[in-house]
């Protein structure tokens, strides 16, 4: 009987062990950012540089990470819940001087060829985590090497087993192709008195500015991007933006504001606004921004100003082969890359107006009272 009892105990112990092992079966090995067996798994990156290139999980592990809690419902009402750890896509893109907002779509493709294109509205409003740790543990094998997690979006975007990332700039979102200089533009807009603390300054309506110099009917515009010389960047909804003013004189000008807005929505020292395909640029604050970034001023023939190329770099304008320089009086000149020579300079002339000068293959070119530059196809 003793033997039989022992047998029974052994059977129960084995059962218990089996249950315990089964329960622990999904526990992963290793810790955060520690070397792992999938570190050399490759992900193809397309559209970020001229040639496709590959990155590995080990590369991603070198980047700073964040951990975010994310929940997404399934159609059956269940919730997919995860604490996702990994670098932000923006952190990865920073190495290439880009942000996710620079793209119209980013497509993630899994090894089984499932892919999803994350559209521009999601790119503009959500953080994307290239997670390799979920709930404090390395990913399960079927998710390796990386699982995309986008908090506040459905789990359909959470591509696992990522094999390829495509960065797309075409499609529904177009990069700016025109820059309008605020100082010159404001002169031809209705200006109104704006009470600001103890002073009365001048302001222009954003709706007037956009109606005259951009496509106010562009239905693809949902957000308007603004950047200030102190580095502040903000997206404002189209409706809010078009109900506001830009104060162009006095303290903290140019300043985006409106009487109905809390001060937290105001933006002082505005450098540029991106409205659809138009960038509106303030020369004075642009100079301050570049100075804050320790970028030296460009000097040409004794004139000090902002390099033509910096305007492109700051506003994200895509370069072309021909450019149309437009003066406030409506006259314009079209210059080619060769005409621009070393690049050209935007500066303030003796009368205080903005001007452009360059010396290229066709000699010296000047544009006074510079209003806008358009990139021609």
């Amino acid at each position, binding site marked *: *009987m003793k033997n*039989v009892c022992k047998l029974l105990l052994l059977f129960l112990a084995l059962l218990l062990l089996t249950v315990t092992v089964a329960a622990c079966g999904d526990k992963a090995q290793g810790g955060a950012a520690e070397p792992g067996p999938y570190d050399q798994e490759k992900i193809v990156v397309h559209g970020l540089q001229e040639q496709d290139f590959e990155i590995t999980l080990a590369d991603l592990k070198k980047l700073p990470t964040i951990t975010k809690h994310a929940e997404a419902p399934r159609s059956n009402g269940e919730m997919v819940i995860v604490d996702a750890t990994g670098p932000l896509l923006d952190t990865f893109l920073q190495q290439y001087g880009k942000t996710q907002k620079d793209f119209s779509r980013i497509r993630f493709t899994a090894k089984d060829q499932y892919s999803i294109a994350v559209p521009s509205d999601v790119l503009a409003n959500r953080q994307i985590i290239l997670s390799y740790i979920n709930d404090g543990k390395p990913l399960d094998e079927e998710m390796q090497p990386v699982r995309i997690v986008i908090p506040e979006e459905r789990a359909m975007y959470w591509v696992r087993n990522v094999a390829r990332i495509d960065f797309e700039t075409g499609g529904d979102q177009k990069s700016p192709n025109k820059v309008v200089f605020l100082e010159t533009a404001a002169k031809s807009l209705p200006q109104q008195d704006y009470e600001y603390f103890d002073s009365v300054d001048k302001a222009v309506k954003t709706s007037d500015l956009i109606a005259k110099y951009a496509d106010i009917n562009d239905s693809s515009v949902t957000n308007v991007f603004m950047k200030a010389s102190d580095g502040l960047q903000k997206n404002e*909804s189209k409706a809010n933006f078009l109900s506001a003013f830009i104060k162009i004189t006095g303290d903290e000008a140019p300043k985006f504001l409106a009487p*109905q807005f809390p*001060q*937290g929505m105001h933006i002082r020292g505005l450098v540029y606004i991106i409205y659809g395909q138009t960038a509106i640029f303030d020369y004075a604050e642009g100079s301050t921004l570049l100075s804050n970034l320790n970028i030296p001023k460009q000097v040409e023939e004794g004139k000090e100003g902002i390099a033509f190329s910096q305007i492109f770099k700051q506003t994200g304008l895509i370069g072309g082969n021909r450019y149309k320089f437009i003066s406030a009086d409506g006259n314009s000149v079209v210059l080619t890359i060769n005409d621009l020579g070393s690049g050209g300079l935007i500066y303030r002339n003796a009368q205080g107006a903005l001007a452009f000068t360059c010396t290229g293959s066709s000699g010296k070119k000047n544009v006074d009272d510079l209003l806008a530059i358009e990139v021609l196809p």
Partner: protein
Amino acid sequence: MLKKNWLLGVCLGLLGLAIGWTAMGAVSRAHRYIPPLKVTGDVTDVLTLQDPGRLGNMEKITFQGASYQAVKLADLLAKAGPQANAGQLYFVALDGFTTAIKATDIDHSYIAFTAKNGWEAINLLHPNSSNIKSITEIVVVSEGSGEGFTFNVLDPETDLVKITPGQLLTRPLTLYPYAEGKAVVQNDGKDYENQVFTKRRVFKISDLTPLQEGDMLLVMGEKGEYRLVDDSGYFEVKDNSINYLHPDTRTKLQKVQGVILRPPAAGIMDVYYDGRRYLESGDKLLVVVLDGLTYQQCDYAMANGYAPFLKSAGKATQACGVYPREANVGLATLLTGKAPEENGVVTASDHTLQAPSIFTEANKLNKKAVFLDAAPKQLDTETEPVSISDRNADGSADDELFEATGATLEQGCDLMMVRFHAIDDTGRRYGFLAPETMQAISVTDRYLAGIVSRWPGKVIVTGVQGAGSAEAAGAHASFDSEGMFVPYWRMK
């Protein structure tokens, strides 16, 4: 020996039976789809029932000649935790057929699951039409409203709408297909796409109260979200809470507590922006923070002669406060100029600022800053607050704070912040407009007169929401026109 072996055999047999039973149960469950039944609306915990075996105490009941294993509706309701007073229970069937019964009349009401009829309401004493089959939802609808789960709409003058998620679920709502995205998979070189939508039950504020052309809405969420929007977005009734959605901008705010229509542009955040501007202009700045003083309370005090100094300073600007209504949350907001969701102080237990404060700006400008506080330290700020204690044990440290402020004025500084606390304390103890609270305002007003007259620069005086007045009214941290606005003065 034979008997022992027989016993062992029985034991092993029972063990095998138990394992088999468990395994069969698992297999059986795995192959049977049970549609979910949701208990939602004005409840603390939304229940999604998919396993009749986990309903709780099952009773055997007989109804119309058939016998059922059923759970008491009252037990189910208790599990979900009805908010405030549950008034009605709506049973919603798969085809939209809906019936409502009084939540107080459910002693003989049951929920059963049968393979034929799915989830089924069995109300033994109610008319037969209440006994509906294929139920998908039981919506709990409370009578009146309670704080914390009520959706509030107000304007600077008055409370306009107080409505609960359950009450909203019984109103006409729009079923809005919210575009989630598009997926694609490549097979044999061809892309196969699908678009994904979720149908959401939504409404607009204009469905609840009239709006004028161009009206702006200030939406505040449970976690300190603070967004100024127009009426183009939607409010979604999701289980027991209300979310804000904007399909174009993909703005999503979870658990909206309230909306202020036509909000004043001024807010307690202005302390940071005004203060920064004054300091950058080379002005010295005194900021006086009056804990617990609300706009309506101050208006009453001035109209009834309790605040002659403040009255002489001119009409106060009505400034928006923030939600949640906690003293440290309001203080962090005015110090940083950022909403709670951005400055990191969202609950009473948060103490670390995650945004630069007015003291950061003072430090950058090499300005000398002092922070005198009659309340215990609530936030970690660059300028360490000097906590003033109630040395004379008269129940308030405000008198000692007044003395300390005078002494600091003699020493001189560029930025001085002084925070009085007695109005909040008294309001909490006696009530919002109680004579004792008015007396506290009167005393504070005298202190203000004494301090402001001696200050050689700009002055900002503002109230900041304490939880006090709401607690006194028997509620906590309510979202109402009485508590969401504070007075704000720029002086000199």
